[in-house]
């Protein structure tokens, strides 16, 4: 994947396929240290310990459309190539947590990419899901919570295309503020 934000989209799709109703995405970047962590929590069906051991193996998948599951192995390869890691913890019936650490100064670290777009399309295409996203850069944070939007929007659904445009503009603006004015899709990966 060319962007970390595409791996995040892929994790979100895993959670949705597991029937998640609530997603909590937490991104923390420390530019002085060159460390970026991503955590995605879901309340989907989760999995047994025996399954958990195998999810990073490409020849394990619960899907029936294809014999390999590529998302998590690719994510781990990306993270480990920077000296970082990708881990998954899960409890059946409760949910799953995926945690990723990447070292952004490593030459093989992909750029963060358009995380605003990843989040906005995910909300618009899954308006029934509650999505809480916080992003912290060098100690300054922004929060995006569909529960708050939902109450402000009243009967207008989060899938409304004009709402999508607003969400995208809002997220891009907030992220560019966090990153000191750079455009969200032009965030330098190694500052």
């Amino acid at each position: 994947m060319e962007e970390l934000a595409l791996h995040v989209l892929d994790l979100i799709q895993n959670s949705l396929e597991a029937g998640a109703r609530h997603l909590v995405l937490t991104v923390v970047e420390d530019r002085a240290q060159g460390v970026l962590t991503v955590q995605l929590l879901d309340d989907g069906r989760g999995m047994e310990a025996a399954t958990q051991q195998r999810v990073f193996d490409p020849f394990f998948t619960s899907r029936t459309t294809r014999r390999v599951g590529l998302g998590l192995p690719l994510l781990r390869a990306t993270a480990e190539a920077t000296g970082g890691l990708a881990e998954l913890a899960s409890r059946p019936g409760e949910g799953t947590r995926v945690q990723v650490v990447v070292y952004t100064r490593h030459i093989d670290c992909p750029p963060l990419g358009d995380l605003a777009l990843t989040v906005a399309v995910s909300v618009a295409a899954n308006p029934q899901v509650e999505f809480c996203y916080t992003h912290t850069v060098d100690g300054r944070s922004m929060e995006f919570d569909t529960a708050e939007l939902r109450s402000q929007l009243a009967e207008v659904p989060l899938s409304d295309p004009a709402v999508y445009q607003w969400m995208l503009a809002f997220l891009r603006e907030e992220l560019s503020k966090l990153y000191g004015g750079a455009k969200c899709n032009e965030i330098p990966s190694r500052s």
Partner: protein
Amino acid sequence: MKSLADLERVRLEAQERMRLRESGASSKLTVAMGTCGIAAGARDTLAALLDEIAKRRLAHVHVVQTGCVGLCEYEPLVEVTLAGQDKVTYTYVNAERARQIIARHVVNGQIIGEWVLARS
């Protein structure tokens, strides 16, 4: 935060569109978003569909995502289901094709034969 005032305007306009909207007939666009789809550019496809629908103020078109449908070599894939019609599956739907599919198929009812993989 100035943007919340914008959101209120968005809400009022959306409410108005919902009020004006005739009957319940609606169309559905499904984008396949397994790892195969995402790697092939499905996020930009989904974004282009949503953006085009917003620009044209189409109130009756829903965009949803699904996982891998087993046709990985044809990604990005978009299924179009117009009210009361067969499902049409389009292949290699980049952002440009996505906008064309809205303009020609969803709005004008003309299936774009050369991009179609299957009808069912």
